[in-house]
C-alpha cells in the first residue's frame, strides 16, 4: 500500500516545538559553517529522533537509546566528521542513560541536542526521566513518584566539556547555543532543549517554559563548576538557560595515539592504496 506521500513531511503534530527546533538547527548549521557532506546526523527513536530525515546531511538513525554509542563509533572511525545527535529525553536519559554517563566520562567529541519535552511523545504520553513529580499519565496514574533526572547537573558533575540549556521559544538564544555547541572542539557538548509537546505534556507548556526561562548573564563564567551546578539545579519559577558550563578537557579522539595524524578511514584508504 502506498503511503509514501505522507512521509516526506515531518511527522510531528501541529504546534509541536520540534518545528522551530528543526528550523533553528538548520540555521545554526549554516551559521557554524558546517559542511553538510561532513555532517553525520545520528539519532535514536522517538519524535525528536526523526529530525535527521528532515534536513540534509549523512544520517544514522539507529535504535532507541543507542545514538551515543553509534555516534562514538562513527567519531572514532572518522574524527574529521562533525557528528551530531538529536535525541529525546527518553531516548537519551532513559533507555540511553548508561551511555550518557559513560560517553561524558570518555569525552567523545559529539554534539548532543536533546529535545526535552519531559514526556515520551512517540509512544503517546508516558512519563520520561525528566517528567516533573506528580505528572499524571495513563501509566503513572498516581502521578510521577521518581525524582526528575537532572541531565545538566550530572553532566557538569562529570565535567562534561560543554553543558547548555535552551528553549525552542527563544529562537535566537537557541540558535546561538547550538552554534556554540557546533563550534566547540573540546569534546562532548550537551544542549538540553526545552521543547513543548502540546499533545502529551499539558503541564510544561510553551507558556509555562516561556514564563520561566531566563538566560544566564554575560557575566556568568562557565568555568565555574560550583556556580554552573547551582544554575543547573534551579528548576522552578526560574529556569536558567545558556551555556552553563565548560571544562578544560581533551576530547577522547584527540587522546588516541593511533589517531594522531590521520583518521582510521584515511589510514585504511591509504593502506588499501598501498596494496592494490
Amino acid at each position, binding site marked *: *500500500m*502506498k*503511503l*509514501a506521500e*505522507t*512521509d516526506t513531511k515531518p511527522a510531528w503534530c501541529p504546534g509541536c516545538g520540534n518545528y522551530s527546533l528543526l528550523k533553528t538547527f538548520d540555521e545554526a548549521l549554516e551559521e557554524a559553517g558546517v559542511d*553538510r*557532506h*561532513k555532517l*553525520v546526523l*545520528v539519532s535514536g*527513536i522517538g519524535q525528536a529522533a*526523526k529530525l535527521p*530525515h528532515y534536513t*540534509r*546531511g*549523512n*544520517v*544514522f*538513525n*539507529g*535504535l532507541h537509546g*543507542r545514538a*551515543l*554509542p*553509534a*555516534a*562514538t*563509533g*562513527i*567519531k*572514532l*572511525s*572518522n574524527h*574529521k*566528521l562533525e557528528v551530531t545527535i538529536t535525541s529525546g529525553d527518553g531516548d537519551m536519559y532513559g533507555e540511553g542513560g*548508561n*551511555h550518557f*554517563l*559513560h560517553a561524558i566520562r*570518555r569525552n567523545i567529541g559529539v554534539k548532543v541536542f536533546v529535545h526535552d519535552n519531559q514526556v515520551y511523545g512517540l509512544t503517546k504520553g508516558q512519563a520520561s526521566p525528566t517528567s516533573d513529580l506528580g505528572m499524571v499519565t495513563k501509566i503513572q496514574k498516581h502521578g510521577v513518584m521518581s525524582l526528575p533526572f537532572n541531565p545538566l547537573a550530572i553532566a557538569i558533575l562529570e565535567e562534561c566539556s560543554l553543558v547548555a540549556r535552551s528553549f525552542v521559544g527563544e529562537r535566537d538564544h537557541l540558535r546561538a547555543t547550538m552554534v556554540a555547541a557546533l563550534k566547540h572542539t573540546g569534546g562532548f557538548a550537551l544542549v538540553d532543549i526545552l521543547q513543548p509537546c502540546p499533545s502529551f505534556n499539558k503541564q510544561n507548556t510553551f507558556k509555562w517554559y516561556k514564563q520561566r526561562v531566563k538566560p544566564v548573564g554575560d557575566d556568568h563564567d562557565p568555568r565555574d563548576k560550583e556556580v554552573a551546578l547551582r544554575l543547573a539545579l534551579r528548576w522552578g519559577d526560574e529556569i536558567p538557560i545558556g551555556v552553563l558550563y565548560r571544562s578544560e578537557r581533551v576530547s577522547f579522539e584527540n587522546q*588516541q*595515539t*593511533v*589517531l594522531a595524524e590521520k583518521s*582510521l*578511514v584515511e*589510514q*585504511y584508504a591509504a*593502506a*588499501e592504496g598501498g*596494496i592494490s
Partner: protein
Amino acid sequence: MDLTIRIAGEAGQGVLTTGQLLVGSLAELGLEVLATRSYMSRVRGGLNWYDIRIGDEPLYGPGDKVGVLVALTDEALEVLGEEVASGGMILHNTGSGKGDINIDLEAVAKETADSTLYSNTVAAGAVMALLGYDIGVLEGLLKKQFAKKDEGVVSGNIACARAGGKLVADQVGKLKGPKPTRKGGWVYDGSTAMGLSAAVSGVKFVTAYPMTPSTGVFTFLAGAADEYGIVVEQAEDEIAAVNMVCGATYAGVPGMTMTSGGGFALMAEGLSLAGMMELPIVVMIAQRPGPATGLPTRTGQQDLMFTLYAGHGEFPRAIFTPGSVQQCYDLTRRAMETAHEYQTPVLILTDQFLQDMEHSIDELDSQPRLIDRRIVTDAGEDYVRYAVTDSGVSDRAIPGGEALVVCDSDSHTADGHITEDMDAHVEQQDKRMRKLKGMTAGALLPERFGAEDAETLLLTWGSTLGPGREAVALLNAKGVSAAMLHFGQVWPLAVDKVKEAIGSPKRIISVEGNCTGQLATLLRSVGVLTECELLTNYTGMPFTGAEIAERIQK
C-alpha cells in the same frame, strides 16, 4: 605415539607459566604440540590444569590419559591422580612421597637461585629431562624470555631448569617422550590466531565489554593496536559495544566486538539493527556453558540456534564455526570478507576450549593484508544507499564524500529515509533477503574426514573438529567404518550440497557440546536430515577423541 603432560594446581601458582615454558620448548624441539586449559572462575586458589599433549604425528584434540602429572598441590593429586594412564608418572610438589617423583619445587628454587619464584622453571626442567628431551632448548627459551631482565634472572632460571632436570635423573628412561618430527617453532592459541587474523585483515575499530572466554581476543587486539593502527575501547556494556561497531562500520572501517553468550544476549537488538541498516559488523561469540552465568570458565556449544535466530525480524547473517587454531585464523578473515561482501552481520561462534587451545602449526602471516571493504568512492549527489538490486547488495558509500549516506533503522525507501509505505517496506525486505542467495552459493561446505563410503558418519561443528578427527582415526584403527563431516560454517547452508555431502550412511551421529543437538535440529529444519543419533557432552569439558570413539562403539 603421543603423551599428555598435565600441570595442575591452584590459580596463581604458576600452572600457566610452567605449561607455557614446556609448550614453547617442546614446539621448538619440533614436536607436535596441542595444549588445552581448564580453569576455575577465580583468580587465586581452586584447581586449574594445563594439558600439553605432544606427539610425533599431527594432533587435533586433547589427549585421553595423562602421561605425566605435575601436581602442584595435594588436591591436584587427589582429584586428578586417577586420570594418569598406567605407566604414567606423577611429579608431586612436596616431599610427602605420594607421587612417583616428589620434589619440593619451591625449596629447590630457593636453594638454587634464592627465589621461590623460579619453582615453575624447576618443574619445566624436570619434565623435559624426564621425557628424555634436551634441556638446552628450555634454556634458550628462558634466555629469550628474560632478555630484557638482568643477567641474574636468566642465570637463576637456567640453574633452576638444570636443577629440575637433575632431580629426575634416576627416573629418566622410564617414560619416553615421542620423537620430534617437524620443523619447530610456532605455537598459537585460538585467541591469538583470531586476533592476529582480524588485525592483519584490517579491523580498525574494536570494542568489547570483558567477558570470559572472549577476553583473549580483546586483549590480543589491545596489545596489537599500536602496531596495526587499531582503536580499541572498552565499552560500558555490550549494548554500547555492538552499537559502536555499527557506527564504526557505517563510517567506513571494519569493526568487531567479542563476547560470550550472556553478553551476546544483550547485543541481539544491535544485530537486528546491522541487518536492517546493512552494516558489515562482525561479532565473535566465545561460548561457555549456560544458562545465565553458568560455568564461566568452561566450554560448551549451546548457542548455535540462539546465534542463528538472535534479533527480531528476519535478515541475512552468516555464522562461522572454526574448528581449529588454523581455522580461527582463516575464518576470521573470511567472516570479515563475507560481512563486507554482503553488508550484513557475520558471527563467529567459538568456545573456551578452542580460544585457549594452543597448537603447533606453521607460522601465520602477520603482515597486513587488508580486506576489500567494497565501498564505492565515486558516488555523487544522487547517491542512494539502498538501491534495489538483483543480488540484494547495494553500492555502499561512506560519509564524508560527495554522496550523503542515509541509513535507517526504520523501514526505509531506497534513499534510506524513513517510510511507512508498505510496498517500499516489502521491496527492501526482499532486497535484503536476496543476499542469502549469493551467501549460500559462496558458503563453506562441510569438510569430510575419512572415507566417502563410511558406514558411520559423525557430524560436528566448531571446536569438535579435532576430537572428531581423532575419533574417526581411532574407530578406523579398530576396523569401524567411520568418517566425519565438519561444519566450519553453519549458516547459510547450501542444502543440496550438504545433503549430497552427507549421502546415506548407515548411521549418522551428531556430536555436540550441548544437550539438545543443535546442529541436528538446524539440519532437520532446513530439510537436510530427518533422523540421526545424538552424542552430546555438556559437562563443561571438551570431548576427547577417545571418549567419542568409545561411546560410538557402545
